[in-house]
């Protein structure tokens, strides 16, 4: 591994010497202090005793200097101030004070000892006060300290507002333009991101934070740590460390509030009131000693609640233009009375159709103990718990059956009863213990971590009751749109996800002269239990309330009225009424590393890590029918799929090399960087989809024709029509006629990237530090997904050139069928591809000391991939990608989270007035190009069965496109439509540059967004006792402060319509026996106001375009 890697643009540089990576434990949790002890002749002193004391807690750390006079305290508590004392027989003791330890960085404190009896004037103090210029920094990243949490605006009280201050950060917790599902988030070293991946962070589905910002001491974001003990990400590692108690009991109680009256009612010049809501966040934190200098505690409890109205379109209401809503109280009451009437043999309370509060709520608890056993041994244990839920309206999807027309959500046509709302619960409990041991001789140290996390996600009915044991019923109204729905929400019964994660890590360091050798292991064990049973209660649609009543209780002498649709899915696995994906996995990691500091001013790290992913498929069921089918891989070769087998184990190696060079030895300029391979994990939901979508879990029944006419509604779901009276013993035979398969490729590997970075930091006068940094990432194993059951194209689209797929996708067609195997609707295979790259360049200046502190940075990024890799299921990874022709191999194009230009910065100014009053004014600014998007067409011109994912061809002239009126009401001729479309292309910066070419996935950008957030704190300290201050702090923060100054500023502009044209057919019919030979026909609809679509962007009416204010009060004790 001594090869020198040369990459593309970075090849300008020859990497001269090795650079030490910051050598911290998996999931950075501590800081470190090191240095050299020399005598007046600069000879290293061996065996000097070094004691560091964390002054607020009295915690003592001790070690001794080694053969080179070097000492290291590898795991000290973050914060300070520290007082470090060196004692050596025959020499005067030396001390240095006021040293602060930063998470994931080493403070270098050197001592020069003078012999007893000799006096020297002026001792060199080379204490490290600037953590940015530190021998341990090699890769790109940032640190956010507690002061910044307390002072900077964060209206949602989310730590992601601070991790976004990293210059390479993007939207939605993404970094470097990569997918946000590839980060590793740890709290005190415990893996705390949602490894299953339904949301990037736990609590995401209920809009809750996993941890309160009041509990966090510091956050470290690393994009390229060359330290091999850090792993499990290809995006960024975000490590948070919680606060610990000190020798003084201190704490704070706080309350924050905001509601719709504190939000701008205008967007730009347009009045646009938002619905009422109220959001409260309150809590308390306290920390202190149990035994002074030895045992400390810290506790934080926080609650957040939010209420939003559930009904925005009430019964009997009408729109601003006077058109009445379809829902009337007389009709809904009539239905409700019928359901409650016992005469028909049963009753059911569907809930209310009046307004109620949709609640969002979270409780967060955190408790931590730190025990300083002695100078050599420290142990800490931390427990964290989140209980959160959110009330959600019913999904408008029909699952495998047809969706209710117009959707189920409350609108001008629909008002569902409250029983069909559901409550999503995200609960998390997490405990981690860490033991740090340093040998008295200073020759070795050990870090041991063991942790357990339990995630429990499940659903209930709104209000916390169980989901009703009642079918889903959708009833249409006179408009032909759904009028109301009641019963169980179709995707809620049995819906459950349990994840258990056990972590065991150990890192052992030898300090031998100028070498620091590390051996370690980092292991995670996962078990998943996921139940998802759509439509298991049965789902009915009726054309009217009368039809429903006349089906349940037909008047004497009449036949029961038939429903318009009935569908049910049932478990095909005998003995399991709700079959579960029950499986496990593990990721073992082993690493070895050497950090060499023998060359003056240079620190080099070289290490190798091996990651071993393991899958447990003992309980995974197989599909005997699809096992024998032939599918097709990306090269057209035959492929078999075994849904019962999870991927084989492949050992993934990550060698890494890092360096740090203090250019002139004075810690004023440093060059740092390195190169190496990083291995991450995928969201395990993509693998869990294979365990659930195997074709053998479920059977379905969806009658048509005469069978449907005979369906009678029953309230007893165990007697639903279509359920089999008995099931055969499970034998791998699918009961459903057609089914979907998910699978992973035989030699599937976890994502790996090759990343290199180079950075220069320079200390400037006035306490400023400037940084230039470049980072390059090449995908070695990127994830992408393909449908192995998609038959080859049958033709090409005339007048366009892209592939044209068959016209049918069903059980019966023998020609022109897109399915290779007719029983399989789709066979999605998760696979690897070695295409994709990203690079970024950052220029940054910061000031971290003094009353005015701040940072400003500019980052340029480019990031390309084959698949956006940001869907929460394997299926949406496939359908969510905009392509030209072949959905199985999209072109390399821009990543979803790419922000090419980003300015970010903050400034914070704290001023004391008189002794008892202080104010802090701070701003966070981000200015960046808006989000990217793809110009696609509605419908599907390549007939691949996926709508709205085909990139458009941008015509040069009218001959190249056939345009027709949108519908029967359109009064434009094709000539007029072309003139409008051509004018739109001409004024659109992106499309006018793509004439004659296809639009690119994510090639178009929304306009620049400038977001300035402000916070004003006023501290009043009415009294203090024994230098402990009791105080009150008032907080006023404004998100989008520019919009507060002027309603036209800070307005976010979004794409007017990215589905710019609609595909409506071909000139000749596209049939199974005869592929279309004619050209495609498109429409270019007018805007929603009936006017021609003339501009590319419109103002977004959401919260992003408005100022929001939040008030808070905090008591310190």
């Amino acid at each position: 591994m001594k090869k020198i890697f040369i990459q593309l643009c970075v090849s300008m540089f020859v990497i001269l010497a090795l650079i030490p990576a910051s050598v911290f434990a998996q999931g950075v949790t501590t800081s470190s202090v090191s240095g050299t002890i020399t005598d007046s002749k600069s000879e290293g002193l061996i065996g000097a005793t070094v004691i560091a004391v964390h002054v607020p807690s009295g915690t003592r750390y001790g070690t001794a200097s080694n053969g080179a006079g070097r000492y290291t305290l590898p795991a000290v508590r973050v914060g300070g101030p520290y007082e470090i004392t060196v004692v050596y027989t025959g020499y005067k003791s030396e001390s240095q004070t006021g040293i602060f330890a930063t998470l994931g960085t080493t403070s270098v404190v050197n001592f020069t000892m003078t012999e007893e009896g000799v006096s020297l004037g002026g001792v060199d103090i080379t204490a490290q006060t600037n953590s940015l210029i530190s021998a341990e920094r090699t890769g790109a990243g940032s640190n956010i300290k507690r002061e910044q949490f307390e002072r900077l605006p964060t209206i949602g009280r989310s730590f992601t507002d601070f991790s976004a201050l990293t210059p390479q950060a993007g939207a939605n917790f993404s970094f470097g333009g990569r997918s946000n599902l590839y980060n590793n988030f740890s709290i005190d070293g415990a893996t705390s991101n949602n490894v299953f991946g339904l949301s990037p962070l736990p609590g995401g589905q209920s809009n809750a934070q996993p941890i309160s910002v009041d509990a966090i001491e510091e956050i470290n974001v690393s994009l390229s740590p060359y330290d091999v003990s850090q792993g499990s990400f290809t995006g960024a590692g975000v490590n948070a460390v919680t606060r610990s108690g000190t020798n003084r009991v201190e704490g704070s109680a706080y309350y924050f509030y905001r509601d719709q009256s504190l939000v701008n009612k205008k967007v730009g010049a347009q009045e646009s009131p938002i619905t009422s809501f109220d959001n409260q966040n309150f809590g308390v934190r306290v920390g202190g000693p149990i035994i002074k200098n030895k045992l400390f505690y810290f506790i934080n409890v926080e609650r957040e609640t939010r209420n939003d109205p559930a009904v925005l379109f009430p019964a009997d209401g009408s729109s601003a233009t006077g058109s009445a809503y379809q829902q009337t109280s007389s009709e809904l009451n009539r239905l409700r009375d019928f359901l409650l009437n016992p005469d028909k043999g049963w009753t059911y309370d569907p809930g209310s159709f009046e307004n109620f509060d949709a609640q969002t709520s979270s409780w967060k608890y955190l408790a931590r103990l730190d025990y300083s056993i002695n100078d050599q041994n420290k142990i800490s244990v931390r427990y964290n718990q989140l209980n959160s839920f959110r009330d959600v309206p019913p999904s408008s999807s029909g699952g495998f059956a047809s969706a209710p027309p117009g959707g189920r959500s409350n609108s001008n046509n629909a008002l569902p009863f409250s029983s069909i709302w559901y409550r999503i619960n995200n609960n998390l409990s997490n405990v981690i213990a860490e033991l740090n041991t340093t040998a008295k001789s200073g020759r070795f140290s050990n870090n041991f971590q063991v942790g357990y996390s339990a995630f429990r996600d499940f659903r209930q009915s709104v209000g916390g009751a169980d989901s009703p044991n009642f079918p889903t019923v959708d009833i249409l109204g006179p408009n032909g749109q759904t009028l109301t729905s009641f019963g169980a929400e179709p995707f809620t019964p049995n819906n459950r996800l349990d994840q258990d994660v056990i972590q065991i890590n150990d890192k052992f360091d030898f300090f031998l002269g100028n070498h620091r050798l590390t051996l370690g292991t980092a292991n995670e064990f996962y078990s998943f239990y996921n139940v998802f049973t759509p439509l298991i209660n049965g789902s009915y649609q009726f054309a009217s309330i009368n039809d429903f009543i006349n089906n349940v209780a037909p008047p004497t002498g009449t036949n029961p009225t038939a429903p318009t649709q009935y569908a049910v899915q049932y478990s095909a696995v005998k003995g399991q009424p709700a079959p579960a994906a029950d499986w496990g996995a593990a990721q073992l990691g082993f690493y070895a590393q050497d950090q060499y500091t023998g060359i003056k001013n240079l620190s080099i790290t070289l290490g190798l890590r091996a990651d071993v992913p393991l899958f447990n498929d003992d309980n995974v069921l197989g599909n005997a029918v699809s096992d024998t089918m032939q599918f097709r891989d990306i090269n057209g070769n035959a492929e078999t799929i075994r849904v019962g087998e999870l991927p084989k184990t492949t050992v993934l190696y990550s060698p890494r090399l890092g360096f740090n060079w203090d250019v002139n030895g004075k810690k004023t300029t440093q060059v740092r960087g390195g190169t190496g391979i990083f291995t991450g994990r995928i969201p395990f939901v993509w693998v869990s989809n294979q365990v659930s979508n195997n074709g053998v879990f479920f059977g379905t029944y969806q009658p048509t024709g005469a069978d449907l006419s005979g369906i009678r509604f029953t309230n007893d779901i165990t007697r639903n029509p279509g359920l089999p009276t008995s099931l055969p013993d499970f034998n791998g035979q699918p009961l459903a006629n057609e089914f979907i398969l998910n699978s992973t490729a035989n030699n599937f590997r976890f994502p790996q990237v090759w990343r290199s970075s180079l950075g220069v930091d320079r200390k400037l006068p006035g306490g400023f530090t400037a940084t230039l940094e470049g980072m390059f990432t090449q995908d070695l194993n990127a994830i992408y997904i393909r449908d192995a059951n998609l038959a080859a194209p049958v033709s090409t689209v005339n007048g366009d050139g892209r592939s044209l797929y068959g016209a049918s996708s069903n059980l019966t067609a023998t020609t022109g069928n897109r399915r290779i195997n007719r029983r399989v609707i789709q066979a999605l295979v998760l696979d690897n591809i070695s295409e994709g790259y990203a690079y970024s360049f950052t220029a940054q200046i910061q000031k971290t000391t003094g009353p005015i502190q701040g940072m400003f940075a500019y980052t340029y990024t480019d990031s390309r991939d084959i698949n956006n890799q940001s869907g929460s299921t394997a299926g949406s990874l496939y359908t969510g990608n905009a392509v030209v022709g072949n959905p199985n191999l999209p072109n390399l194009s821009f990543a979803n989270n790419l922000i090419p230009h980003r300015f970010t910065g903050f400034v914070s100014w704290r001023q004391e007035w008189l002794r008892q009053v202080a104010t802090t004014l701070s701003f966070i600014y981000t200015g960046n190009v808006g989000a990217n998007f793809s110009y696609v067409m509605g419908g599907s011109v390549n007939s691949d069965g996926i709508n709205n994912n085909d990139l458009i061809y941008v015509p040069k002239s009218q001959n190249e496109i056939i345009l027709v009126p949108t519908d029967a009401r359109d009064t434009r001729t094709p000539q007029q439509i072309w003139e409008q479309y051509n004018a739109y292309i001409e004024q659109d910066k992106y499309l006018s540059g793509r004439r004659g070419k296809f639009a690119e996935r994510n090639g178009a950008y929304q306009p620049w967004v400038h977001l300035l957030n402000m916070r004003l704190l006023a501290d009043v300290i009415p009294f203090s006792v024994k230098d402990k201050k009791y105080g009150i702090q008032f907080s006023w923060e404004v998100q989008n402060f520019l919009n507060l100054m002027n309603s036209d500023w800070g307005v976010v502009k979004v794409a007017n319509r990215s589905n710019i044209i609609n595909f409506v057919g071909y000139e000749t019919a596209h049939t199974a026996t005869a592929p279309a030979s004619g050209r495609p026909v498109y429409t270019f609809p007018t805007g929603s106001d009936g006017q021609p679509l003339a501009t590319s962007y419109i103002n977004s009416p959401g919260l992003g375009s408005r100022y929001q204010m939040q008030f808070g009060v905090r008591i310190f004790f």
Partner: protein
Amino acid sequence: MKNTAKILFFALLALASMSSCTRDTEYPDPAPANEASSLRFKMLFCNAGVASPNLNMLLNNEVVGSNLEAYSYLPYVSFPAGIAQIRAKAASGTIGGTLGSNDLLFRAGATNNNNFTAPSGRNYTAFVTDTLQRPKPTTIGATDPGGLRFFVVEDNLATPAAGKAHVRFYHLAPGAPAVWVGLKDSTTAIFNDRRYRATSQGTAPNVVNFNVFVPVNAGIYDFDVHTTSATGPVVLSVPNVTLEEGKIYTIYAKGKPGLAEPNGLGAAIIQHN
């Protein structure tokens, strides 16, 4: 300082080299058409609206026929294939009746707003049917505006065999009951149980599609239109209908019983070729 200068120089060099690394994406070259398409379909307009004013016919908002009187028809127009909006406007003034000043539009699909799908190479006959005063349905949000309506059928213009003519029949007389059409004094009907605006009869696999032309020997015919059955009462006699060899015809019942001529119950004929 020398070292610092070197560092900064290399850093700027890296910056420059990195930004020049921007690569274009490699999407395939499209293969667009370079001239307007030549694929066409044909449509014959017939105004069978009871007491309808003269109508101008538009396809995709372009006038393709003007001043079409009630109970007459225009020869086939050729039009670009694909999707076509079919619209009729009054030649002067407004259409009147329930439609008032609105245009008559062909409507299809679940929301009754879709245009007409017309693949290349096909032939169609588009009738204007119904009375001006046909009421608009009263359900809330109904999309049928009432008044005149389009009725479009496909035509197979294959040449009849030697000595034969092709003929078919449509019932387009609102208010009249189902009819049986046969030769005068015949006990069987050529066209059985034809209901108003019906396009077919029976369920699979025994479906009779009314747009299919029936071959008959060329000649001059007297037709009787019965109600109730093939031998039921004759409500209309249509004498002296010439069916020439090799020609294709559509006969349709028009008008409303009880109205004065020419809007009373009657019949009219279209010659397609």
